[in-house]
């Protein structure tokens, strides 16, 4: 629609922010958390740290033998065709967001970087070289309690972290680039300010090519027609990571003050009106001229970004109404002419049901056709187990050598429905082939597991995180 170059002072902002916050103790740059702080935050937690799963709960010890029985439990706990290798509560700060990325450090260590769902922590790096013995490398704090990092991605030794605030107008909000070549000491390179009188900053970002960061973000100069429509699609070039430059943006016509188009219709309030705003902004090297854009209550878009200054929608698919909105992720399976599209469940007790993982026939990218969904167990049996139940994140085939790539198996997290793997070899009949529903973690706010995100590395090791307190679960695929 229009292009509004960012202020060229990314580096300056970052330095300014860092300098300013150093003086006030509000550094955005990584600051290893002190142990006393951790202890103080969660005095009732059990001993922290990595514990091989086998030691954690002998009665639930995963068997190493093929053919062994699944793990069972009184509250619907299931481990079926996954093997739990380890569980790490992340020092008592196990409320995790939807940013998970693997770095191979210069000394050969394999480190997974995890964004926290909410303050006080920013991100945590965990050495998973031995997936049975994960070890925290660094854990950092956010400067403000109203912030959340939620999303991160990395390429090489550069990591991008999103910052969102609870209310519009709060600062800092935007995204920050870190040099993580020394994982113990992430060093801020740049901070891009996306705060504004109508902005909550950045919710999600995508950064896999070392050149561009694709964001769901607000902006200082963006006045939405509705307060919930504040985050749109923005593209920053970061070839010089110290100087990010905005090169393009797109928003749903009608969501910005001054648009000729009428504001879009809203979903039913109060539960289902979540905003006509961007969520996932996936771009892959197979089609560098496409962005696969989840746009929450406006459905999904495939964007032509061959001219990044002027992104253009190629198609829109919106299942709601009659469905209940919050389109989250669009994963293209290029070789198979398929799209995997997820909703996000955002209301407890499945009050916004159904929230699904959809399979779309994308042989013609202008006309995607839904052909199936990944089946879940009966909602009546699961909605009352605490917290949310329904679709959310999937493994996104992040185009890096450290990510598992599959076009036949979908890995997804479903909050209290756990982690599930689906065989979509026949995309008309997705078939669940593996399930992991661990017991409610200690200190769970809702009394159940709430698996929030999943990432699989190229070794086939699966990492999944809990939204409130469970931290990191590391599993092996066994199907």
């Amino acid at each position, binding site marked *: 629609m229009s292009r509004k170059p960012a202020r060229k002072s990314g580096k300056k902002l970052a330095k300014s922010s860092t300098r300013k916050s150093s003086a006030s103790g509000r550094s955005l740059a990584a600051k290893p958390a002190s142990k006393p702080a951790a202890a103080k935050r969660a005095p009732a937690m059990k001993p922290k740290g990595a514990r091989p799963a086998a030691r954690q709960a002998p009665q639930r010890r995963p*068997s190493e033998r*093929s*053919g*062994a*029985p*699944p*793990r*069972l*439990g*009184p509250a*619907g*706990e*299931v481990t*079926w*065709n996954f093997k739990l290798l380890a569980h790490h509560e992340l020092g008592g700060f196990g409320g995790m967001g939807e940013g998970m990325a693997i770095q191979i450090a210069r000394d050969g260590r394999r480190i997974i970087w995890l964004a926290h769902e909410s303050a006080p922590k920013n991100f945590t790096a965990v050495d998973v070289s031995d997936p049975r013995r994960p070890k925290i490398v660094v854990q950092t704090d956010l400067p403000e309690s109203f912030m959340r990092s939620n999303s991160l991605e990395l390429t090489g030794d550069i990591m991008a972290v999103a910052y969102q605030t609870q209310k519009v107008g709060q600062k800092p909000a935007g995204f920050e680039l870190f040099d993580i070549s020394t994982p113990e000491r992430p060093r801020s390179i740049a901070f891009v300010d996306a705060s504004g009188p109508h902005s909550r900053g950045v919710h999600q970002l995508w950064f896999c090519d070392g050149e561009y960061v694709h964001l769901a973000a607000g902006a200082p100069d963006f006045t939405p027609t509705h307060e919930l429509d504040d985050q749109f699609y923005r593209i920053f070039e970061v070839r010089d990571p110290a100087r990010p430059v905005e090169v393009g943006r797109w928003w749903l016509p009608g969501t910005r003050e001054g648009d000729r188009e009428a504001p879009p219709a809203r979903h039913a309030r109060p539960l289902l009106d979540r905003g006509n705003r961007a969520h996932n902004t996936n771009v892959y090297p197979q089609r560098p001229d496409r962005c696969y854009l989840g746009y929450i209550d406006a459905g999904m878009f495939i964007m032509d970004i061959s001219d990044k200054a002027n992104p253009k929608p190629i198609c829109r698919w919106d299942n709601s109404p009659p469905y209940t909105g919050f389109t989250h992720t669009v994963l293209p399976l290029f*070789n*198979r*002419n*398929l799209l995997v599209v997820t909703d996000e469940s955002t209301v407890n007790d499945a009050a916004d049901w159904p929230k699904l993982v959809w399979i779309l*026939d994308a*042989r013609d990218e202008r006309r995607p056709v839904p052909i199936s969904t990944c089946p879940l*167990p*009966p909602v*009546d*049996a*699961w909605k009352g187990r605490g917290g949310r139940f329904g679709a959310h994140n999937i493994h996104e085939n992040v185009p890096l050598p450290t990510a598992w790539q*599959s*076009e*036949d*198996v979908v890995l997804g997290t479903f909050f209290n429905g756990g982690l599930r793997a689906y*065989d979509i*070899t*026949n*995309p*008309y009949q997705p*078939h*669940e*082939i*593996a399930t992991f529903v661990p017991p409610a973690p200690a200190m769970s706010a809702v009394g159940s597991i709430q698996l929030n995100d999943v990432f699989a590395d190229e070794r086939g090791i699966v990492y999944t995180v809990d939204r409130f307190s469970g931290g990191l679960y590391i599993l092996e695929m*066994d*199907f």
Partner: protein
Amino acid sequence: MPAVTDAPYSVLNLFPSASAGRFGRRRRRERGARIPVSVITGFLGAGKTTLVRAFLNSEQGRGTAVLVNEFGEAGIDDALLRDSAEATALLGNGCLCCNYRSDLQAALHGLVIERERGKIPYFGRVIIETSGLADPGPILTTFATDRALGGEFHIETVMAVVAAVSADSTLDRFIEARRQILLADRVVLAKTDIADADQIARAQARVRALNPRAEILTAVNGALDPRGFFEPSAPALVRTAISGAGGGFFAEEVEIEHTDNVRSFTLVEHAPLAFEPFARAMEALMALRGADLLRVKGWLNVAGCAGPVIVHFVQHLAHPPIELDRWPGTDRASRVVFIMRGIGERQVRDLLAATRALHE
């Protein structure tokens, strides 16, 4: 064998997959996501229930659903904790017991539905304890296709329990007892503690004569290594080839002809083979003599596949072939076990050769 040629081809043409094979997603193990089932047969008083009870009390037995014809016969009603559904009882150790009376299919589907609805614990294994006089053939048939139980359940092992003290007379007198041995993957000699060495040796010889492929295990004081209830990791055994120089299938062992006109033999081929002629031969066999095809199971080395292709036929039914993602060992031979009534090894080999000749 329509299941072979149906869905995967057309779907993969529309939505091609670089990693899936012609038989769909390559699997790490044969059962895939299906629930493993162990079928325990054995004549009256053979000691089946004792073995099952010992298994349920083991760590590996956690989360097992046991299906019996009648609670009373199974003898585990004394372990019931409380009633759930009408015909289902929860046992200790996360296990449950279901009385299926006559309709095994309805009972198993009912258990899965109740499991998904959270009405009963999440079981991950099923043991079917048949009544003493049961012929396992019809049970195997029920699991042979996706339309019945084969989509959700996978028979990992068929186990026959034989009391060492009475094996001789039982096998002499009852065709059902012989059928149980014939169709078994494993035979467990029970009650060896009250049998003398001569009785044990005779029982072993009788079993071996009926089913030379079966693994023979011995229960010690009513208990068996729990692994005996699981699937063997690779197909049975390699025996000395008695024929088969040159190409094509050859018989791996002496054909066994039993008193009931049942013949069993194993065909082997070392070179990778084309799947179509094999499938066409099996189609012809099922069409012409399905009723006499008691059980055929094998691993095929199909040209172009990453791992063995597992085929399974019962009477006129063929289970969709499953390709594993790798070979478990260095032996890459195709190996198919036939248990047939009135059909000999030579006839089957000729049929396989004929379809191959036409195909080529």
